[in-house]
């Protein structure tokens, strides 16, 4: 816990003098730690001359930021219209069933956190999913099984 805070404090001092520092700082924390721990809010608030409520308000406003540790991999399934037109609804149902989780939940083996996403910009190759930083197009249920197996390995 102490080590985590030290790591976050270092990121705070790297970013605090940027104009509009809060979002870049939150990204840096989530990139490095995997999430934005609520315990860090007081430190962030103090460094940026904000109230803790303001920090909480910003973290909770944006879908990208999370306040709890995710699984080892993040699987995002696109829910937007283009993917819907190519059957993403059944892909979503398939993912939830295979992983035995709903959106925003992590599998019991902590391998995968499942998230919805609204467009990955891969709309010519719908339906699309993203596993960590990689996008996959024209994804079938079998393709998804393959990705899940790879992530769980």
């Amino acid at each position, binding site marked *: 816990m102490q080590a985590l805070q030290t790591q976050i404090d270092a990121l705070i001092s790297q970013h605090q003098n940027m*104009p509009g520092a809060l979002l870049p700082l939150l*990204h840096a924390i989530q990139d490095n730690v995997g999430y934005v721990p609520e315990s860090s809010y007081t430190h962030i608030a103090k460094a940026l001359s904000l109230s803790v409520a303001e920090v909480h308000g910003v973290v909770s406003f*944006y879908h990208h930021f999370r306040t709890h540790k995710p699984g080892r991999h993040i699987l995002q399934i696109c829910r*937007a219209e*283009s993917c819907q037109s190519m059957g993403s609804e059944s892909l979503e149902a398939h993912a939830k069933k295979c992983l035995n989780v709903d959106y925003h939940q992590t599998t019991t083996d902590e391998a995968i956190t499942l998230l919805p*996403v609204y*467009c990955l910009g*891969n709309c010519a190759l719908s339906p699309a999913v993203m596993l960590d930083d990689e996008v996959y197009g024209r994804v079938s249920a079998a393709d998804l099984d393959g990705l899940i197996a790879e992530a769980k390995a």
Partner: protein
Amino acid sequence: MTTKVYIPRDSSALSMGAEKVAVAIALEAKQRGLDVEIIRNGSRGLYWLETMVEVATEQGRVAYGPVKVSDVASLLDADFLNAKPHALSLGLTEEMDWLKKQQRLTFARVGITDPISLTDYIAHDGYKGLKNALALSAADIVKTVTDSGLRGRGGAAFPTGIKWKTVLACEAKQKYIVCNADEGDSGTFSDRMIMENDPFVLIEGMTIAGIAVGATQGYIYLRSEYPHALVALNAAIASATEAGYLGDNVLASGKAFNLEVRRAAGAYVCGEETSLLESLEGKRGVVRFKPPLPAIEGLFGKPTVVNNVISLATVPIILDKGAQYYADYGMGRSRGTLPIQLAGNLKHGGLVELAFGITLRELLYDYGGGSATGKPIRAVQVGGPLGAFLPESQFDTPLDYEEFTKIWAVLGHGGIVAFDDTVDMAKMARYAFEFCAIESCGKCTPCRIGATRGVEVIDKIIAGKDTVKNIKLVRDLSDTMLNGSLCALGGMTPYPVLSAMNHFPEDFGIANT
């Protein structure tokens, strides 16, 4: 002799296995002792053919696709490095019908060059626009952009030159250029393609904008869902800075322009310019009241140009070839070209840049090849989640801002999503409300509360409860949202809802009226 092989690094190409194909070709060629140089170019935008591999020949590049890893050995067996025929042969890339008929101005280099090579950019007419701009007065640069007829490609279609003129006229020590790269509309990917496949053209466009209005700092507000664009932009900014195209003394002109990429965080509403500025300032992306206009009081309260990626990336060719050259394309008040994105249930999805005026039908069938599922196309949504659904009877509408306004639709950012006849339009209307409820910033009541009430009422309609009464209620609610919302999110959600209801009443359990 070394053979040049082009394999895209675009993320849609990667989504079809381009990375694995590149590795396989390199490995297989090495094992066979063949001398191959692999160049990771951008995608040509014929996405159904990805991974599309091209080989350089004396006649031009020859394409093969869609290539899978399992095809690599047979391609080499067939001697594709010498452009010999194979089952996946597509012929000369430039002669492919889909590409040949396009009018690529903004996308002139996309798919041709190595996106992060400054040398390649310059060799393909890059930075000619900036050089011309540096020889002009600020007012003349703005006039050139105004005369070209360029209108905001993000969706609002406001004349770019007029926006610049307002910022130029403001007296301030600090001004900003902000690029709206929060491309959140489903069915759109042209911003992503520019940023991944020709990032320098955006950088050049922003630099010209900075020089024109006297802004020394630029920010690209990039959606967090585009990690590959982030890498490409940062690499390009670094080499442009190193070569003196960015920095405190741009090309020794004595003018400064610095550029930084800032990551968004997954809020759709931040594509709205004032909410974007709040977010850049490190706050919740809550929409601001207008006035003041961002051009007068924008980022950190300073005069700010906020333009979409495509608008800014179109500026270099206008400054290179002149306002008239650009304005000669198009129809009516829609001048120039529009990078159109064909998406959803289409056989041939991808990027088609054409002058305004082409009809939806030509795009859907001549370019799109009809539906991917082989069923009839029943509806298309143009302009993202806030765009209207159009039935087959409106497919002959030409792409033109004013023509779309006439049929109560929008062109938006040029994304076209096709649906086949299995689509349930009541479900799509429900989704429009649901999306608005999820993404509302919460500042104004019509959007915050209206969207949630909308989902509830549509659920009743779907369940067949008091249909006539509830349809009337949705119309009333839509009227409130249309006229009472602070920004386009609440204000345009009625477009998909009402268009679905008007054009496909049978899906709502009501007779065709």
